[in-house]
């Protein structure tokens, strides 16, 4: 790659790093995970990021789209992102093969305040592909298990085949130090666990707010009801953390799509506490 | 003019409608701006004069309530075209028509006064008297009227529920409507090409022409912006600008009601309506069709004749 930028100390925030897709995992019928490695071994070795940060993936000729890095910074053999087929870029990503080259601009944005969460109970609430940003933090915490107290994960999807990260789920289920609660929206042959929407299950499980941080991500409608549910359970606003998504182009807080008031989801976010969100106008 | 009569009519249509779309004075004396009033006591702001240039019927397809709209003759054709294409529910629209002997082109007035800010505007005796910091200027209305008024065939709205004033007849010869098209066609191919390259070269792709066009109803799905299908890139090349204007014109074939909004709103002063007028003249010649006149007509591109009398096979 050549960058003839004479200015800005040679740093060009729009210029992606070329990476190779080393493995593609079919998570659900419309979600695939991509493990990527920078072509420049030196850059891969020196690359650092924090759990919750996002990156822009390029399929050159089609465009860029934003995804959270869902592998944890404690496991750096590759970076993993998960992509749900929805628009032009995601469809193009679903058409690539292992060994193909893509562009990556990362890390962008802020991250989960995992240091402030030390010594606390952690409650993860995820829906569908919304487990992706939580996964990076879950794996990070499991890799530093002693720093955190009880870890509860409430995760739901439409049907059992729509649950992402089935291998991780199997592992979490087998661990005694993780309380995993799975649910699907509707009855499904062979499914013997809970049935019901995530916010409903949250009410049934009724976790205690004491010394607990709740972290949620999922479709907008789920987030809305989960936030209401957490308020009902008396979780203080500053202990509710969510990670947002919007249409993004530049990823560096300029292009004007993802701002909520003066805060840009791509640069000042994507991680916000409910207390912070309540201070901001809607997007 | 009949502002008072218009106000009376507007008061009459309440409470049958939720809203009346009319005009009020804009940010200066030369500009009017659309006004949406929702109760009969809000009519004091309403104005009707020859500065009421916007085609208010353009708002109808996006409003799903019972609406009254004030239209000039030319604007009324929009409503008829909407009916032909099933874009509005006629029973949801109350049409307040105003016979009109022509409006003025704000752009032409501003050009005549060197783009100076306007302090006052008066109308008398076929003249418009414009006051700017550089002094007063008297302009003959005929000299600053938009192209569409010069050949207006429908000074009285073609459709209305209320008519403010008495119907009037056109005083312009019907045969001369497309004179400007024929005049332009006297230029050589190369001259025409150069003309449009220069004019479309000014385009900044703000899509004001498209968004102000009453017949551009695709909105979210306009192929000038979609990536799938990927008709056109976002590049600012002369080819892409030309392509956009061809898209706009071809999609209006047999549908353009010649309200002139596209041209009026262009911030770069591009004669956007020219292509549409050419297509309309072809529609008239080929299919004897005039858009927006008879609600029972079918737009020519929506139908066909097995034997097309006017289309001759082209020989090589």
């Amino acid at each position, binding site marked *: 790659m*050549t960058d*003839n*930028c*004479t*200015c*800005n100390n040679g*740093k*060009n925030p*729009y*210029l992606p790093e070329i990476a190779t897709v080393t493995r593609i995992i079919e998570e659900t019928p419309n979600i695939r995970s991509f493990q990527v490695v920078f072509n420049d071994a030196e850059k891969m070795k020196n690359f650092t990021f924090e759990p919750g940060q996002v990156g822009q993936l390029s399929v*050159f*000729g089609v*465009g860029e789209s934003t995804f959270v890095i869902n592998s944890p910074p404690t496991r750096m053999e590759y970076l993993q992102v998960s992509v749900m087929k929805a*628009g*032009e870029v995601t469809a193009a990503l679903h058409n690539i093969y292992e*060994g193909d*080259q893509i562009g990556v601009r990362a890390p962008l944005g802020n991250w989960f305040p995992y240091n402030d969460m030390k010594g606390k109970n952690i409650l993860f609430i995820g829906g569908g592909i919304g487990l992706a940003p939580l996964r990076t933090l879950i794996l990070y915490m499991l890799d530093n298990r002693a720093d955190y107290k009880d870890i509860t994960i409430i995760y739901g999807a439409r049907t059992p085949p729509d649950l992402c990260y089935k291998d991780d789920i199997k592992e979490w289920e087998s661990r005694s130090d993780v309380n995993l609660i799975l649910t699907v929206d509707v009855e499904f042959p062979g499914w013997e666990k809970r049935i019901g929407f995530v916010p409903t299950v949250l009410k049934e499980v009724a976790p205690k707010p004491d010394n607990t941080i709740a972290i949620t991500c999922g479709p907008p409608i789920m987030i809305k009801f989960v936030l209401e549910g957490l308020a009902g359970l008396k979780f203080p606003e500053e202990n509710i953390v969510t990670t947002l998504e*919007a*249409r993004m*182009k530049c990823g*560096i*807080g*300029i*292009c*004007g799509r993802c701002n909520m*008031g003066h805060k840009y989801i791509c640069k000042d976010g994507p991680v916000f506490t409910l207390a912070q969100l309540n201070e901001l106008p809607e*997007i | 003019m009949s502002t008072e009569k218009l106000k009376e009519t507007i008061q009459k249509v309440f409470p049958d409608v939720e809203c009346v779309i009319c005009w009020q004075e*804009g*940010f200066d004396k030369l500009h*009017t*701006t*659309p006004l*949406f*009033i929702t*109760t009969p006591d*809000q009519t004091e702001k309403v104005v009707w004069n020859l500065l009421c240039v916007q085609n208010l019927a353009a708002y109808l397809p996006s409003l*799903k*309530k019972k*609406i009254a709209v004030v239209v000039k003759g030319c604007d009324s054709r929009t409503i008829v075209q909407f009916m032909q294409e099933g874009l509005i529910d006629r029973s949801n629209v109350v049409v307040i028509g105003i016979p009109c002997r022509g409006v003025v082109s704000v752009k032409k007035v*501003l050009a005549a006064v*060197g783009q*100076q*800010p306007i302090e006052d505007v008066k109308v008398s005796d076929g003249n418009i008297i414009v006051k700017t910091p550089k002094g007063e200027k008297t302009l003959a209305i005929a000299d600053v009227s938009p192209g569409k008024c010069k050949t207006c065939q429908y000074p009285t709205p073609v459709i209305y529920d209320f008519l403010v004033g008495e119907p009037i007849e056109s005083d312009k010869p019907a045969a001369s409507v497309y004179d400007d098209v024929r005049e332009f066609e006297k230029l050589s191919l190369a001259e025409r090409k150069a003309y449009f390259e*220069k004019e479309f070269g*000014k385009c*900044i*792709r*703000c*899509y*004001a022409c498209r*968004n102000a066009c009453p017949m551009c109803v695709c*909105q979210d799905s306009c192929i000038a912006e979609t990536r799938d299908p990927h008709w056109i890139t*976002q*590049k*600012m090349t002369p080819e892409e600008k030309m392509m956009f204007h061809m898209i706009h014109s071809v999609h209006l074939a047999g549908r353009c009601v010649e309200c002139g*909004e596209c041209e*009026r*709103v262009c*911030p*770069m002063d591009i004669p956007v309506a020219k292509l549409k007028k050419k297509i309309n003249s072809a529609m008239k010649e080929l299919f004897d069709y005039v858009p927006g006149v008879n609600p029972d007509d079918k737009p020519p591109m929506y139908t066909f004749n097995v034997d097309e009398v006017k289309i001759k096979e082209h020989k090589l």
Partner: protein
Amino acid sequence: MADTGFLPKEKIKEFLEALSKDTVVYVPTKEGETAAFKVYSPDAEICLDRPANIPPKSVIYPQCETLLSFEYKKTDPDDPKKMAVEVRAETNYPKAVIFGCRPCDAKGFAIYDRVFLDTDTADPYYREHREKTTIISLACEAPFAGCFCVAVGGGPADTAGSDVLMTEVDKGYYLEALTEKGRAALSVPVIEDGASYKAAAEKIKTEARAKVKNPFPADATEKVSPKLFDTDEFWQQVTNKCVSCGACTYLCPTCYCFNITDEQALSKGERIRTWDACMFRHFTLEASGHNPRPTKSRRFRNRVGHKFSYYPEKYNGAIACCGCGRCIRYCPVSVDISEVVGYLKDPKQDPATWVATNTKAVKDGSL
């Protein structure tokens, strides 16, 4: 290098010719009734008697800019599917001069600077253009339709963003260099000594300022009223007539939202950045079909909010509007942003009375 100078009217072309030797000079050029910034040529009709229809922002922030070019190359002759992609970015632009823009146009660049440069992810394309461009603005003698620069912290002779400020005095222009780049421009031999014109220029500038009206109420608050700002009815009412086009944003010297798209032909292509407009329905539309700003009232709220609330909050009270009035002058339906902001800055205004005393909003059905 001189700090001031004088350019006689008859020597404008000579001056521009001299500058053109090693720079690309953009001048407001008349084409019919439209004035836009074009590369200077001796037969150009230079328009200095009014602001151009479109500000010179595209000189420094082009409407379409190549961010990078890419090329797919086969890496394995036996396996045509194996491809490597090569990416290149170049920012080697020629030096440029913007001549004859207005102080509001130049102030636009000062507003951009904070966004593009005053950040840890500074924009190299913008920087390169900005550093290589000298801006010679012309002070306004009188306001034009819709002008309200004095209400947003500017003025007809504001110096923000300019390298040279010209003031029209009898038979020519008094020039003041404001930066090193400006002083360099004044070192062209055509420029005469300007000292004797200083007093006349100052007088014209003071008089011009008094002529610009402030459309906001006399007791306008510094910030916009959050209560009215959060009233949906208010925004719906003021945007009833908006047609959702991009004229206001594309003509705005301070609007900078953009789109990035890839355009490919066969194995090669470019990633381009083009102006975009927050007033377009497409702007925030997500692939899922969800649109967080679904109505024109919400989009307009963002536009006004960005300029008069969000940007000031981020940058120490600076307003992201230069009051050039173009969005008012060229709006197809005469939406008047100064009127809207006037309501928002009126301390007497409260949402309940506003909603009660104004015509009701007709909610747009075009979600």
